[in-house]
Each structure stands twice: as C-alpha cells, then as structure tokens.
C-alpha cells in the first residue's frame, strides 16, 4: 500500500503517458494484408509449382506423343533407317527414300580440300576441280570418272578419293529443319514441297502434338478392362472394408471394456502407420509359396503355391484385403468417435426397454452414423481411386493384368515397365482422367461439407 501511495505523492511517478512504441521498421508486416501476403507466399509458391502447374501440364502432355523414344525436350532431324521406312510406307515416297538412303558423291570444295590434306597428286585435284558441282548417285559411276583422269591413280587411291567425296545422308542428324532441307537439296535439288514436308515429319525425332492418346484410350479394349477392374476394386474395398468392416470394428470395440478396445484399435492401426513396403512384405510372407499359408495348408494336403498370384480370384482377394486393412482404420476411428458422441442416456433407455444389442445398433447407432458414413465414403472413394502403393507392391497388376487398376496402369504406361519404352503422353492422358475426376469430386466435397460455415470474419480488422 505504501508503495502505491508514493506513486500518488511523488509527482513524476504518477502515471502519465509513455510514448507509443516507435513505428516498426517493416510497417507492412503490421497489417493483415502485408503480413498475410508474406506468410502465405511459400505455400502459394508450392501450390503453384506442384499442384497448379502439374495439373495444367498433365493436360498439355496428354496432347503429345512424348515417350522415351522422343525424349521430353525438343528433338532433331535424323535420316534414320526407321525414318526412311516411314517415308516409304506412310508417304509412299519410296524413291525419295532410296535416293536419300544411298551414298551420294558430290564434287565439292570440302572434298578437294580433303584431297590436298591427303597429299594426293595435284593433277588429280586439278582434274576433279574441273568437274566441281557434279553429283554421282553410285560409287561405280564416280570411280569410273576418277579412273578416267589423265593421272590414272591406282585402285587404292581411287577408293580413298571417292571416300573423300562421299556425301551420304543416311543417319545424318540435323539440329533444324533448315539444315536438313539444305542437305537434302544438295542431293536432290528438285524436291517438291510435299516431299519436303514428308521428309520433315518422317525424320523428326522429338515429340509432337497429337490427339491420338485419347483416340487410343477410347478405342483400346485394354481401357475397358482397366476401368472395370478399377470400379470393382474401389466398390468392393469400400463396401467390405472401409465402411463395412470399419463399422464392425467400431461397434464391436464400443461394446467391450476400454482396455481391450484400445488394444484392438492399435492392432488395426498398424497397417495404416506401417510403411507400405514393409506392410506388403508381411502379406507376401503370408502368401508366398514358402510362406505361412502354404506351410500351414500343406498339413492338410494342399499343394504349396504363391497364393497371391496363382489365380486372378486369389489376387483380387489379396489386393482387397491388403488395401482394405489399411482403409478400415480411418473409418474405425471416425465411427468410434461418432458412437462415443451418442448420449449415454439413449443407450440406457434402450436397455431398460429390453432392446437387444442388435436393436440398439439398428435404431440408435446406425442412424447416428449417417454423416460419418457419407464422409468416409466420399473421402475413401477418392483415396482408393488413386491408391497405388499397396497394389503395385503386392500383385503389380498381375497375374496377367488381372488386378491392373487405373492408377497402376498410369504407372506402368508412363513411369515404369519391363519393356522400357515409357509413353509419357499416353500416361498423361490416362492421368488426366483421374485429375478431372479428382477435381470434380473434391469440389463436390466442398459443397457437401458446406465450407461457408468455416469462414468466420477475423476480429482484428486491420
């Protein structure tokens, strides 16, 4: 008390006003807008770089024929045997192809310079100089000309000379279409525009724009099969495990004491927290021909085999089990907390009424799970539709493509397959289908779960 008295009596200590703090050095850090922009920038950049750009690029790549063969950067022009074959077969320009493919001999300054370098007799060089600009389409014709020179070189020298003037285009690479054309015109000055265009297209090694991917996607019988597999996989896993079995776990653990219930929840959580590689390895141990299942069934006279891959049916069983065990835990947690939120009085009232357990489940628990079930179904549909790790690591789509689902097909088309020819463009077209479904479904969730309720106006206004 006495201390505070002092404040009143000794004038200066009486509370007057102290200066406000100096304006901060970075004033823009003190407004919602300025600070908000700074704080959200890293997230925004990551979103642009790894969500927005890839979404757009998936669309862009889907309209190209990019593959391992074409590369992903621009290409060059190469008169390869393959390109000549295309020129013959697709454009019906067999004659042109033949001309380009054959070695040609052109008497030019470059060749003459080479001769001088090789210390060939100056008379020969002078003799050839007179025929500067002439072209010969066969070695024989050209060599005859050389032999007819007054100096009469020996056979070995003739060969060396003709080699120096060989101007074959076969397997030559040109960085640009212009370079290709001037080289081709050197051999055949009378190329028509049609021939030029055909040559340009046939010899291009890079990727180009195309809508073929979508045509192929629609017409390929493989597409239908993968589509069917995917729908079956999603529906079966969702129904049996992600909602059905999850609900069973949630309800069952609700009816037993907390301690065992906790243990069971942890057990069923193991698949979710385990890295996919090791989790699937455990299933392989269970299913492989030297694994647990085989050894166990051997006692009953059943031949050991790789249960995971020996038939399409078994493969599906395992794919659904493996994915389902992972998916069940999310539903289990959400359903369990929804059941926990049901007022205890409802249960007591019901048991007084003599309702049996299943009636409790039917009339009290299930009605309360409506929204959670909708949520889990929505969420897991998208997850399953795009899930890849477990299936890739277990059956890898086998046996014989029986369990090839859409996401896995993308992986096999564009990212990794045994043939080694990765079709990026086609894979992107397949991915685009999932991207579109993903965007549509995520927007749908936004509507479904009414995000407006989440937006509360900030209470500090500047």
């Amino acid at each position, binding site marked *: 008390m006495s201390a505070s008295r002092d404040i009143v009596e000794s004038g200066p200590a009486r509370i007057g006003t102290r200066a406000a703090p100096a304006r901060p050095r970075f004033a823009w850090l003190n407004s919602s807008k300025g600070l908000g922009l700074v704080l959200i920038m890293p997230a925004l950049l990551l979103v642009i770089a790894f969500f927005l750009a890839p*979404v757009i690029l998936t669309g862009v790549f889907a309209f190209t024929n990019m593959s391992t063969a074409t590369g992903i950067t621009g290409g060059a022009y190469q008169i390869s045997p393959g390109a000549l074959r295309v020129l013959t077969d697709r454009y019906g320009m067999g004659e042109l192809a033949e001309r380009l493919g054959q070695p040609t001999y052109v008497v030019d300054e470059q060749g003459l310079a080479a001769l001088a370098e090789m210390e060939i007799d100056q008379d020969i060089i002078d003799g050839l100089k007179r025929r500067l600009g002439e072209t010969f389409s066969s070695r024989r014709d050209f060599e005859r000309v050389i032999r007819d020179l007054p100096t009469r070189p020996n056979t070995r020298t003739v060969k060396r000379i003709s080699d120096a003037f060989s101007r074959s285009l076969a397997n030559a690479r040109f960085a640009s279409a212009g370079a290709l054309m001037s080289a081709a015109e050197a051999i055949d000055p009378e190329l028509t525009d049609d021939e030029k265009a055909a040559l340009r297209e046939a010899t291009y090694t890079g990727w180009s724009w195309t809508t073929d991917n979508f045509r192929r996607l629609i017409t390929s019988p493989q597409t239908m099969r993968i589509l069917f597999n995917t729908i079956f996989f999603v529906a079966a896993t969702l129904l049996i495990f992600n909602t059905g079995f999850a609900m069973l776990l949630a309800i069952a653990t609700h009816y037993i004491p907390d301690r065992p219930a906790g243990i069971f929840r942890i057990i069923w959580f193991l698949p979710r927290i385990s890295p996919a590689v090791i989790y699937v390895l455990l299933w392989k141990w269970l299913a492989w021909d030297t694994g647990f299942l085989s050894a166990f069934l051997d006692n009953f006279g059943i031949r050991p085999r790789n249960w995971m891959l020996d038939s399409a049916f078994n493969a599906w069983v395992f794919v659904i089990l493996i994915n389902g065990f992972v998916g069940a835990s999310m539903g289990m947690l959400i359903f369990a907390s929804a059941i926990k939120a049901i007022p205890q009085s409802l249960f007591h009232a019901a048991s007084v009424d003599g309702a049996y357990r299943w009636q*409790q489940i039917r009339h009290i628990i299930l009605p309360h799970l409506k929204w959670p079930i909708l949520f889990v179904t929505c969420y897991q549909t998208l997850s399953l539709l795009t899930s890849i790790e477990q299936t890739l690591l277990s059956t890898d789509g086998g046996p014989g493509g029986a369990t090839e689902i859409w996401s896995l097909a993308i992986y096999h088309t*564009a990212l990794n397959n045994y043939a080694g020819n990765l079709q990026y463009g086609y894979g992107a077209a397949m991915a685009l289908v999932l991207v579109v479904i993903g965007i549509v479904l995520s927007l749908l969730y936004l509507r479904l779960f009414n995000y407006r309720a989440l937006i509360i106006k900030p209470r*500090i206004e500047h």
Partner: protein
Amino acid sequence: MTGHLKTWPIILALSILSAPLVLMYAYLFIDTVTNSPPGSFIPNEFTLEHWAFLWHTPPGRPSIWRVTFNSLLFAASTSLLVIVVSSMAGYVLSRLNVPARGFFLAGVMVLHAFPAITLIVAIFLVLQMIGLYNTLIGVILVKAAIDMPLGIWLMKGFYDTVPWEIEMAGIQDGASRFTVWRKLVLPQVKPGIFALWLFAFLLGWSEFILPQVLAPSGDVQVLSVYLASLIADDNNFDMALFKSVGLFYIAPVLILFFVFQNYLMNIYGGGSKG
C-alpha cells in the same frame, strides 16, 4: 457400456479377426532373430545372422547407413518444410483479414481432398526438365507440397483455438501483427506443431512411390526404395533378410507411434489419405 451383456464373445470374435495381423507383425520380429526348420514356423535357433546387412554391404547396393541417412534427411526436411509453410499459411487463413480469404480456404480444402498422386506423371517430367530428377531436393519439395494442404488445414484448426483476446492484448501492448504471431500465438500452438511435425515425419519416412518414381537410384535411395528393390531382386530371395531390413525400417515408426499415440490418433482420424 451395457453391463449385463456378456463381452467375451465379442472379444473372442475380434481376436480371431485380428489374428492374421498379429501373426504377421509377431513374425516380423521373430523371423529376424531366429531360424526355423524348413516347412515349420516354430523357431529352433536364435541368430543374429539376418542383421549382417548392418555391417556388410552386398555388392551393387548402397550401404544401409547411406540409405538410412537419406531417409532421415528426406523425412526431416519434408516435415520441417511442412510445419514452417503450414504454420505460416494456417495463421493467415485462421486470423488475418486478407482479401480472398474465403477463396484460399476453399482452395486448401479442395487441395486437401485432391489426390496429388495423379499429378505424378507431370511432376516426373517437370523434374526431368528442370534437372531435379533423381535428386533428394526435388522429391523433398514434391512431398512437402503434397502434405502441405493437410498441414495448413490442421494448423488453421490449432490457431482457431487460440483466444482472440490474446492477440488483441498483444497489439494493444504495442506488438506488431508479426510479433504477435511469432511471440504470442506460435507458443500457444506448440503442441499442435509438434503433432504435425511428427505426423509429417512419419509420412515422409514411410513414403515409397514418390522417391521410387522421382529419385530411384544409387546415392539418393531412401529405405523404402532400397527395401523394395531388395525384395524385387529375384536372384536373392531371403525373407529373413527382408524382414530384418523391414524391422530396422519400421522400428522408429512403431516407437514414435506408441510413445505419441495420443498426438497422432486425432490427426489420423481427421482425414489423412490412405
């Protein structure tokens, strides 16, 4: 709990259903330290031979320690990036009066539901074009970006629980909005940041498909890719070795999970993908 109803039939039924899982995880441990006679699953000798991979690097493969270091680096970097970026952006969405805030919020929700894995083809090509293919940096950035929407969403939730009055008091005390965030609000959400860090770390540690596609080889291999390539190698089939490497790989996950269960269950329940 309805006391007069018997619970043991339920426990029994659950035990039978759970038996395959228990068996698998039990043998994950048992098989790494024992040998069993062929065709039997009852071990008859104790051995540490399956753990030889720790000090003996098989030809043609990177050292397990190199790979472990890569995994650690990968998980630590992604989780760090996720918590830094999310704790910044989450605050904006929760508290700051910025234009188009509703749009950002909706965007985060859509991104959170959106399956980023569908973008992997485009990301693969982009990383090749900009020269980040087969580098840890590339795959770290991608993984962090993919985990970020969930992180932002969770952080927004944590910030929402901090009383507005603390921020109001802060600005009245003369602190700038930045200082209020840094000195007054961040300390309140520390447990949330820790939970998110842990969660993101475990996600990074477990990730397989991204490093498999974007950084598959040699020096940058992480444990999951290493183990998968070990298993995929038909010439050296050794289940006990796979399991030992697997146990080595999963042990940190299990330990962290059991120790910090309560932190994690909420996040898992709140909608991680899978």
